[in-house]
């Protein structure tokens, strides 16, 4: 790895890792663009009531206002119920971003916990946990998810928990590998030899040094989770209406695809832009913090 490995002070090594990574990150134009996209999205979600010209849920004057093509008054047109698509797309960002962030937090915490336990305790614990990880990875996630969501019939919170509970396996593998390699580093061994206990080693060395891995993994996972949530909504298993969610809007637009193309088109673009934002950010963080870690 790098020469900093010989540095006996783990804390100093960690600090250097962070500041170097940060300065590398700021030079990455794509990464900054991704960060910009996400910032704008969060502002839009937070300020939705101020930004949106119309109520996203209340029905419009139906016979006259339904399926209005994009125009000055309704830049993205209106839907079957005469609701303004632009307002609904802006409000839809709330669901996608909230589900994305919360589900990824659950997934990452679970993955880090399992990975750290497997890596730290080794032996039978490791073997059992990793076989469970293998088994869950062998079933495509969407099969697991539609099984769970359909069976436990959904609310937003259930979907968040399930997305988290089915998305932790790769993180677990990553963290386990990181913990295993850390345990063999000289300064960790030195700390052990000096009599540092398990807890102090975990807090002072393992967690700070795994943090970058975890943050990068989390950022790269959010895009995938937002896509999965949208797919569930599209299958009719997502957030129940009338709460506007992008996947469900694409689904609803399907019945009038030819006559009102704007219904499916714009929410889909919103999903794509969001996922691109998180992927750009994640890629840039990955390059900045550890060029070799993630293949």
């Amino acid at each position, binding site marked *: 790895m790098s020469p900093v490995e010989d540095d006996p002070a783990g804390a100093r090594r960690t600090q250097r890792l962070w500041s170097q990574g940060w300065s590398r990150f700021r030079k990455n134009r794509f990464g900054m663009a991704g960060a910009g996209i996400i910032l704008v999205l969060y502002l839009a979600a937070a300020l939705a009531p101020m930004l949106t010209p119309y109520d996203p849920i209340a029905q419009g004057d139906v016979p006259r206002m339904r399926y209005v093509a994009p125009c000055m008054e309704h830049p993205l047109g209106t839907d079957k119920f005469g609701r303004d698509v632009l307002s609904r797309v802006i409000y839809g960002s709330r669901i996608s971003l909230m589900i994305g962030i919360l589900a990824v937090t659950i997934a990452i915490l679970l993955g880090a916990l399992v990975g750290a336990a497997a890596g730290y305790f080794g032996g039978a614990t490791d073997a059992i946990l990793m076989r469970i990880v293998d*088994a869950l990875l*062998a079933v495509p996630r*969407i*099969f697991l998810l539609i099984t769970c969501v359909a069976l436990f019939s959904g609310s937003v919170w259930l979907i968040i928990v399930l997305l988290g509970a089915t998305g932790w396996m790769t993180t677990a593998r990553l963290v386990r590998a990181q913990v295993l390699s850390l345990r063999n580093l000289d300064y960790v061994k030195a700390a052990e030899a000096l009599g540092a206990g398990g807890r102090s080693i975990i807090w002072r060395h393992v967690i700070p040094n795994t943090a970058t891995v975890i943050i990068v993994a989390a950022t790269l996972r959010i895009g995938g989770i937002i896509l999965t949530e949208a797919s569930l909504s599209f299958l009719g298993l997502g957030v129940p209406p009338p709460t506007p969610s992008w996947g469900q809007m694409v*689904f609803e637009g399907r019945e009038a695809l030819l006559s009102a193309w704007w219904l499916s088109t714009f929410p889909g673009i919103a*999903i*794509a832009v969001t*996922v691109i934002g998180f992927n750009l950010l994640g890629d840039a963080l990955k390059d900045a913090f550890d060029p070799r870690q993630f293949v």
Partner: protein
Amino acid sequence: MSRFLVRRLIQSVVLLFIVLTITFFLLRLAPGDPMSRYYNPDFSPEMARQVRESLGLDRPLIEQYFRWIRAFARGDFGESIRYQRPVRELLAEAIPNTLRLTIAALALHILVGIFLGVLSAARRYSPFDRVNTIAALFVYSIPEFWLALMLILVFSLKIHALPSSHMQSLDVEGMSALSLFLDRARHLVLPAFVLGIASAASTARYMRGSMLDVLREDYIRTARAKGLPENRVILKHALKNAALPVVTIIGLDLPFLLGGAVIVETIFSWPGMGRLAVDAIYARDYPVVLAINFVVAAIVIIANLLTDIAYGVLDPRITVGRGGGK
């Protein structure tokens, strides 16, 4: 090599067993009842009890579990509660359809992915490479179902070039073999494209990176120094080594493809396993859901096994097995 194979086979069987166990208890602990479809005023509690008994649903859960495992081990997947037909028959109809779709998508994935990746690496930092990079990111980030709808909108509804659903036309009776083949091929284009293109994009990225790594190696410099034309250096010397890591990626991508098939089959009304699974889950048709999860997991696990073996065959430096022998 054979010891490695035996160990991997045992591991695979254990994995399948765990998958079955997890799915079984997940399904049975969830609320909902496959009997609910029978409920109507004419259906007496006594009849319900009899049906339950005949399906074995009245036994203790743990006993049902062991019965199921035993039946699965014999290759008996039971009978669909909803269709009252052997699950094996339903699967026999659906699996070839899903395979047709996924194999077409996989072909697109591998050919387009490797081709674009190699071309990008060969012309690093050229406008082509840059466009490729951005296009890959874009394709990888758009939702499959949305891409499907947009393609249907353009190619089916606007210019009427391709069919938007089903596996073949309704009037295939009396078609010649050739026109039947063409008809099916036309129906395959959009679903296979939607299913394969995202994977192709990510493979192109991996291929590019892997190719660039290999092009830095000494033996490539030697080949160039000998005066070999660049095309030959890339296609003959670099490609084989660069394709190695990509083989693994393709193997690992299979769950993704089979998962994507759920969405794609739903949108294009493709009569495959994905649609069967979605319908079965809604109907609480336990035997079908269990069997599909089992089959999908088995396909993925076998693919992983084959990937490992292919890896060993392609790269003689890799010695599989703990003893280091082959």
